[in-house]
């Protein structure tokens, strides 16, 4: 009797474990995944809520993009995500193994800024990596990444993104005088030599919220961060923070569909909806995120804070194809450099 009871419990445990995943996957509700933060709220109110109102179809949004998790889902055949809003390093042809090609009979490719719609992904907003600083500590406005590396002129610590392909090597090269349009292929040796000049003053941040905290609290004098985070720290959180657009590095967030999604057709329709003019232009309603649709006109009040309003100043663009092809080398060089004493 006790033994059969044990077996019943074991069976129940196993049944719950194996039944849960398909139960979610077979649902027709779309699942949207993005990186979270204030952006997550913007997506909910500006894209997903209107979509549900217009089509009557349900969509659930999840915060926390994770390329490894997506790959694991695809390989296990248990894909519960339908629209994956990844960063610029995700979704190039190198990731084709895990993605469904975008259906350009549904998604209006000709309305997207040239270069921002490819086989497996289509951009839904343009952002940038920029230099932000604490206004209590930095009283003379910096002019570019060279000032980020100038500890004499601007004393204090510097916070950088703890992500090998997030732009840390790019800003070092820009500071060292490399022209923005000749950044790639990245000269990693040169970048590391430049980074070594300020290594003892570097603080590495892992999440966007942390980058705001570091510069807002004055623990660091300057930070390299996403432009929407710098804006959030200054405007929403009213921290003593300001930022510059000189030598910003432009990037885009991309919509992709994981291979094995049970709702591919519906996902394509949602992507087409998200990048359509009326919806795409609302990306700048609450945050300084530029539209990817050429016909979209961004929120005029947000214009001074949009990366795309500052293209008269020097700027660089991430070369996603080169990064994707070399990510393993970049990552191992980064880890070796960072951990070396």
């Amino acid at each position, binding site marked *: 009797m006790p033994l059969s009871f*044990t077996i019943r*419990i074991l069976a129940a445990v196993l049944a719950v474990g194996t039944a849960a995943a398909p139960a979610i996957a077979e649902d027709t509700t779309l699942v949207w995944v993005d990186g979270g933060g204030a952006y997550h709220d913007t997506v909910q109110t500006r894209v997903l809520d209107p979509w549900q109102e217009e089509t009557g179809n349900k969509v659930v949004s999840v915060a926390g993009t994770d390329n*490894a998790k997506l790959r694991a889902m695809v390989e296990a055949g248990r894909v519960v995500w339908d629209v994956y809003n990844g960063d610029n390093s995700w979704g190039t042809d190198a990731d084709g193994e895990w993605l469904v090609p975008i259906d350009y009979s549904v998604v209006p490719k000709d309305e997207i800024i040239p270069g921002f719609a490819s086989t497996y992904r289509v951009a839904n907003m343009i952002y940038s990596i920029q230099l932000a600083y604490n206004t209590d500590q930095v009283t003379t406005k910096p002019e570019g990444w060279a000032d980020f590396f100038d500890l004499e002129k601007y004393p204090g610590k510097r916070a950088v993104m703890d992500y090998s392909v997030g732009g840390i090597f790019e800003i070092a090269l820009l500071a060292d005088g490399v022209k923005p349009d000749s950044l790639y292929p990245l000269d990693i040796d040169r970048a590391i030599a430049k980074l070594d000049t300020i290594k003892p003053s570097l603080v590495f941040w892992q999440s966007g919220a942390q980058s705001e905290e570091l510069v807002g609290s004055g623990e660091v004098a300057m930070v390299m961060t996403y432009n929407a985070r710098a804006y959030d720290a200054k405007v929403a959180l009213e921290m003593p923070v300001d930022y510059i657009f000189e030598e910003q590095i432009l990037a885009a967030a991309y919509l992709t569909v994981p291979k094995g999604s049970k709702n591919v057709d519906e996902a394509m329709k949602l992507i087409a909806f998200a990048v359509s003019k009326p919806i795409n232009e609302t990306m700048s309603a609450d945050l300084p995120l530029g539209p990817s649709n050429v016909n979209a006109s961004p929120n005029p009040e947000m214009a001074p804070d949009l990366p795309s309003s500052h293209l008269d100043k020097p700027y660089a663009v991430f070369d996603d194809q080169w990064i994707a092809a070399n990510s*393993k080398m970049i990552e191992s060089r980064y880890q*070796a450099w960072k*951990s070396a004493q």
Partner: protein
Amino acid sequence: MTTAVRPAARSWPVPLPDSIGIWPLLAALLVFFMLPAASIISNSVTEPENAGLSNFRAVLTDPTFAIFAINTVRTAVLVSIVCAALGYFYAYVMYRSSPGVRAILVFCALLPLCTSLLVRSFAWTVILRDTGIVNWILINTGVVSQPVGLLRTSFAVTVGMAQILLPFSIFPAYVSMARFDGTLLRASRSLGAGPVRSFLEVFFPATRVGLVAGTVLVFVLSLGYFITPVLLGGPGDQPIAVLIDAQVTSLLDWGAAGAMSAIVTFFVLLFLAIGWRAVSRIFFA
């Protein structure tokens, strides 16, 4: 059932549980921990296809892996030393206290275990940073004029992890003291040994097993730490867990991650085996 289990106890390192109630828990452990862990580790020889031992060769000859391994072991040693000293001392104070005070001490030692590890690690960042309370006091009392860099150092990692792991060294030490026969101390004193000598030659040798058991547990647990060194440490304090995470999340290299996990698991089991006699004497005697 129970009679069948009893004789087998001798051949196992620990007596097999004779209560049927433990089996569902063991089953859950198998399904939700052992099987996933085994599948992660098996990636080391199956990813990419026909990998054989190539992942292990690549990992073991990678100088970056060596740096992270050294970081991990150095942190674990520091934390173990701090926990051994503080834990044994705390247990001794508990042992010498009245039952009422002891209850309060037990409560204080257990309380941190009930709060989230992430919250405690983050609390340390707030306390130790340049604009934090420690530097505020140091500056306002005139001890220093510039903030002392406490956060993102080995010091911060050691303090943070030692605070979290301290209960694991306190309780084994206390168990060994509670089992200590107090009349031995009186005998030693009546035979002419002073309090210091009695402690060193009678009390300490008899309770050393608790110190060893606790230190083994702290050391082994330290090897797997992730979020505390990430939040509190500098680039030179990052443990292997960070490198494993980078293999999976940035490089999607499950093979290398599996090989690294296998190596860490091997050393965890090795250290547990070395300390097993002490641990089993404390927990299963």
